[in-house]
């Protein structure tokens, strides 16, 4: 056990020495891999932020049914009962024209303008919540509502959300593909970096083998190097994404304030940063495994 630990300690120190021996090329390698990781990760973070724009309550499929101004309580109850009886309808909520106006005042910041109106222009409405997020069902319920009297208009509220969700879905797939392609690029860069290290040290490897070093002993510093390089690249990617988001946030917050909201791009969570560093470490290590195994793979004897 002591020998095993000593080997690992020796390998770790060798790996740090090798990295420090060529600081410029080490930094450039880390930066190249870091940029390759930052692209999909930054994309993922942006999409994650966009997804946050969709409030959970509005992500559900809803139909707004606007009633004629002549509708009385009996009409409202009648329409409510008919809609509630339909298959796929979870609940029907009445929103009075006064409540709607009050809500409009607080949510849009147009209180002064609304105050200037002589009369409340908004109609009474019924908000129909569906039991499942199904576009066809929402269209069907809206169509049925339009045939009822005294309904003036019915609209599917969640259409834009569904479009946004579809857009986010496309974005996520694109990020996934980009991650896969750039993951391969990271693997290739790690493979190549370690291959160059192996070639630079081929005399040492040859002598070490001849004096009784096992392949595991020879391989280990290179694997540490690949892993460390991957971890540092993950750190570089975090720094790049953090800097980009911080820069973007200055403009985004100004834009959001013009719309009366306080939206800012959230920086990645600590667990997401940890996952990135872990992933990049594994990729760096894997590149090193492939590279060193290719070199050491042959039987130490010549045939």
């Amino acid at each position, binding site marked *: 056990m*002591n*020998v*095993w630990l*000593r*080997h690992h300690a*020796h390998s770790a120190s060798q790996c740090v020495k090798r990295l420090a021996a060529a600081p410029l090329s080490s930094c450039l390698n880390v930066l190249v891999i870091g940029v390759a990781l930052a692209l999909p990760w930054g994309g993922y973070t942006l999409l994650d932020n966009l997804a946050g724009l969709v409030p959970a309550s509005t992500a559900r499929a809803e139909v707004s049914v606007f009633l004629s101004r002549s509708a009385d309580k009996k009409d409202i109850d009648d329409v409510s009962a008919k809609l509630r009886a339909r298959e796929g309808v979870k609940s029907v909520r009445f929103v009075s024209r006064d409540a709607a106006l009050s809500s409009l005042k607080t949510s849009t910041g147009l209180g002064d303008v609304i105050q200037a109106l002589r009369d409340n222009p908004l109609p009474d409405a019924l908000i129909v919540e569906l039991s499942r997020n199904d576009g066809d069902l929402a269209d069907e319920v809206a169509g049925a509502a339009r045939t009822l009297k005294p309904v003036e208009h019915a609209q599917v509220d969640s259409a834009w959300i569904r479009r946004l969700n579809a857009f986010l879905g496309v974005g996520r797939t694109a990020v996934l593909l980009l991650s896969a392609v750039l993951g391969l690029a990271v693997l290739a860069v790690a493979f190549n970096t370690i291959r160059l290290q192996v070639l630079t040290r081929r*005399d*040492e490897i*040859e*002598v*070490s*083998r*001849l*004096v*009784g*070093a*096992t*392949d595991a*002993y020879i391989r280990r510093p290179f694997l540490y190097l690949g892993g460390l390089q991957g971890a540092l690249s993950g750190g570089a990617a975090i720094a790049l994404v953090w800097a980009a988001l911080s820069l973007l946030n200055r403009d985004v917050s100004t834009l959001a304030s013009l719309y009366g909201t306080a939206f800012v791009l959230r920086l990645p969570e600590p667990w997401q940063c940890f996952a990135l560093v872990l992933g990049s470490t594994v990729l760096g290590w894997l590149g090193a495994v492939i590279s060193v195994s290719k070199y050491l793979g042959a*039987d*130490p*004897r*010549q*045939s």
Partner: protein
Amino acid sequence: MAAGPIIAFSRVTKRYPGGGEALSEVDFTVQAGEMVLLTGHSGAGKSTLLKLIAAIERATSGTVLVGGQNVGALGSRGIPYLRRKLGIVFQDQKILYDRSVMDNVMLPLLATGEPGKDAARRARAALDKVGLLGREKANPVALSGGEQQRLCLARAVVNRPVLLLADEPTSNLDADSARALLQVFSSFNGAGVTVVISSHDASALSDMAPRILMLNRGKLA
């Protein structure tokens, strides 16, 4: 190592792809504690024979036993453990010029998991035995030809091998340096280490090795 001959070759043939036979049906044994001089003209198969003992090459046919272990049957994982029992002085030296004399000698010890301090102590002892103590921090480039060979010898013996192999260790040395180096080999043999030295020039060494094996075109004469 097991009792019996420390080296046993039985009908060993080595044929290189596209080339002729380097060794042909070679049979011999070396007992523990012997000092053997392997001689023959250039291309006689001396280096090949030593490489077969150290599992650097694989015999085409026949059996090579080292310490009772069949070298040909060793898997790639077993070879490092065989080599740790051997000390090898290579014809092309295989010195690492990007590190100090001390680091070169410590290499076999670190590879076997020896703690750094113990490795340094043993490396200094090995350098002392070959007369290089005081040159630990020097770069091997700064050493003379004879000193470089002694460095190789120190690296070969630092792991306290039971069998010391040397391939043409005196080929680039003047007569005095060669004689001094052979005295060191002889002293290791006196301490119980089996020594096999190959040289194309038997006259310089024959008075030091009680047993001479002569190779001629891959066959033992």
